[in-house]
């Protein structure tokens, strides 16, 4: 395991914190680490900060993510990585679409030129919306407490996608699926960052696989073209035990 001492902890939403720590390692947007809380568990977490100081942004969920959100500056964190691939680069304008904690891994991609579609269950949970300039931001909430009401794809429908050269998307798989369906016949290209169960992070346990590819080593980022041909995307996955389940 690699270890580092936490430099700063920022509260991003009532349930989400960013943890910043030094790590002398080149990392790319889209890559993740397997973060270990000794005695609790180990989970995959995207790198939300990929500069000299690295960072992660984690939403409280089960025991491990909860333990992560309770860490303080000066605490030690343990992880291994970086794992996974990265997003394609582009010259033109980009459209960044994040659902819930999915925004975490997209943070390094945000530039002056990016337009953001930030979605969450409710207003308080909108993550990193403030990183986009006001006129380049579309907000969507499930409960309609702010912005468009509904799922992320509803936000997309308010935009002219021809403006953008590439879309970056991260969030729950069903959200990705609805977006893929929406853009399937459209011109716009897109990179989707997927999340499935990951037990090993190194291409061994098969828990994260889709279409015979391992999200942890051959993903988590896949282009629109690959997902359009997929047998399993948005439909089925393997559970913790290895049982095939509907999404």
């Amino acid at each position, binding site marked *: *395991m690699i*270890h580092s001492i936490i430099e700063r902890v920022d509260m991003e939403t009532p349930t989400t914190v960013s943890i910043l720590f030094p790590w002398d390692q080149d990392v790319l947007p889209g890559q993740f680490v*397997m973060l*270990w809380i*000794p*005695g609790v*568990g*180990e*989970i995959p977490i995207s790198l939300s900060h990929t500069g000299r100081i690295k960072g992660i942004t984690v939403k409280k969920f089960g025991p491990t993510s909860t333990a992560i959100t309770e860490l303080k500056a000066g605490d*030690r964190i*343990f992880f*291994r990585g970086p794992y996974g691939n990265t997003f394609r680069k582009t010259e033109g304008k980009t459209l960044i679409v994040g659902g819930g904690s999915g925004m975490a891994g997209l943070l390094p991609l945000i530039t002056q030129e990016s337009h953001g579609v930030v979605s969450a269950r409710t207003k308080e949970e909108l993550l990193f919306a403030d990183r986009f300039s006001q006129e380049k931001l579309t907000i969507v909430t499930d409960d309609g407490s702010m912005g468009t009401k509904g799922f992320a794809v509803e936000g997309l429908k308010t935009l002219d996608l021809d403006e953008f050269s590439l879309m970056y998307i991260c969030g729950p798989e069903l959200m990705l699926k609805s977006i893929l369906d929406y853009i399937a016949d459209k011109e716009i290209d897109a990179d989707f960052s997927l999340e499935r169960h990951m*037990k*090993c*992070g*190194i*291409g*061994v*346990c*098969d*828990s994260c*696989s*889709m*279409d*015979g*590819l*391992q999200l942890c080593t051959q993903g988590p980022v896949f282009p629109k073209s690959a997902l359009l041909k997929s*047998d*399993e995307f948005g439909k089925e996955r*393997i*559970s*913790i*035990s*290895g*049982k*095939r389940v509907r999404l």
Partner: protein
Amino acid sequence: MANIDTIITGIRLANPLMLASGILDENGYTMKKILEAGASAVVTKSIGRVERTGYRPPIIAEIPGGLLNAVGLANPGIDNFDHEVEIALQAGKPIIGSIFGGTPDDFLYVGKKMEQYGASALELNLSCPHVLGVGSEVGSDPELVEEIIGELKKKIKIPLWAKLSPNVTDILKIAEAAQKADAFVLINTVRGMAIDIYARRPVLSNAYGGLSGRAIKNVGIRYVYQIRKETGKPIIGVGGIETHEDAIEYIMAGATALEIGTGVYSRGKGIFSEINKGLSSFMESEGFSSINDMVGVAVQ
């Protein structure tokens, strides 16, 4: 190209390299992909009678020379595994069903189903905890091993491969108890453990784990050689195979076919076709015309 096909317990393999149990063989699409990448067969993840989630992560640790794992026999249960075998079979190559259990009855229940799903052989993973014996494994109890294999032999038509553990005082005793099996698979992981000195605790959630990869290659060679020499039975060699030289070392020690697990992690899925290429050119330059010509040539 030298001819690298091989026949093990009547099953013809286009090359000696199969995928080992427990690595990328839970999802049918993954198994299919690995077969398309050059593996001649896949051994499924070890499947038991009921669904198990296994241990909580960390279930794996990367160590110099290999991996340590304690997955905890996570598996969907045999009744949920039909579809995965079905998908994998689309590649048109043999699927070997790895099964585990604590009693002869478990093995029989799971084995029967595997056979129905279309497995070409059963690989018996004898390394799971013994339900009656405390702390020990099924595979270290010769009487239980004999009973399990005797029972299966009567009721299962496809070949039986007994996968033995290296963590025993006298592997020959276990091999004798398993003599009704059609072949031996050697070896399963070696007992091991890793501690993180900054966290001051074991890395794996289960503390203890099994060592695989290059670190155990010479252990595997040893047991393949010994069992070949003492029993003459067909052997499938597994443990730390990463290069064609490793593969040849196992074959010369007595293995008729091979399995690769950790090598897929360290070298990628291309490992099957790479080793096959190396194998073929070695055979050509060293004057071997078939895999069979090499099997056990180093055994004295």
